[in-house]
């Protein structure tokens, strides 16, 4: 298996672990009225995801500088967030202060920015050959 593919798999595993922990702890803190900790978890979740994306993305880019890598990571993060959120709401022990509307709202707003990212990807596609930026190919 290519090293770049391995980095992507590691990122997906990290994302599933980070999101599961954050999802469960957020519902737990909400149920127990620790509202400040909910914000703390949200901030930690953001930072952990940023670091995971930066670390594995950088390693993958060093291996092969595919310009689509950013979008691939963004899509994976969005999909995992959606799946874990729905699974938790349907089968998990969500707090009584949470409802699906909030998840759908988050996915809607985030989805808008994801759509912008996809548009940007297609806008830049002609400037690349097989996913590599023309200026990055020859040295």
């Amino acid at each position, binding site marked *: 298996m290519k090293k770049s593919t391995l980095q992507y798999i590691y990122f997906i595993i990290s994302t599933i672990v980070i999101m599961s922990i954050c999802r469960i702890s957020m519902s737990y803190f909400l149920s127990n009225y620790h509202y400040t900790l909910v914000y703390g978890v949200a901030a930690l979740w953001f930072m952990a995801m940023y670091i995971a994306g930066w670390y594995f993305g950088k390693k993958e880019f*060093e291996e*092969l*500088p595919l310009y689509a890598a950013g979008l691939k990571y963004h899509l994976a993060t969005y999909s995992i967030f959606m799946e874990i959120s729905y699974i938790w709401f349907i089968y998990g022990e969500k707090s009584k202060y949470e409802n699906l509307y909030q998840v759908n709202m988050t996915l809607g707003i985030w989805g808008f920015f994801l759509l912008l990212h996809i548009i940007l990807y297609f806008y830049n596609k002609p400037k690349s*050959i*097989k996913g590599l930026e023309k200026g990055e190919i020859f*040295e």
Partner: protein
Amino acid sequence: MRDEKLINQLLEAWEETYKKGQLTLWILLALKDGDKYSDEIIQFISETSLHTMTCEEQSLYRILRKFEHLGIVSTYSGKGNKGPDRKYIKLTALGITLLQKFIDRNIKLFSQPSITKLYE
């Protein structure tokens, strides 16, 4: 004396810029000479360029990964001079055509008599 120092400084600056885009050409020339593993490519570049060009191992691997992704080169395992099997790199048909067209368009023009007479 002052002029000589200036010329040397200018030459160094010019050559630095001039060599920046040459690594691809040297790597592909090394592979046109025959299938090679990474150390052999580095050695070929150094010797054939009369040590005016050098290629770091990491840079070479990075470039070769991109070329393999683009289908310019391909790799296979083969026997080394000694020790375990080595990963050999070869030019694909696409790589051969690309190099030939690049040479025709950009290198051969320096061999024209109207240009070569200006070398002296």
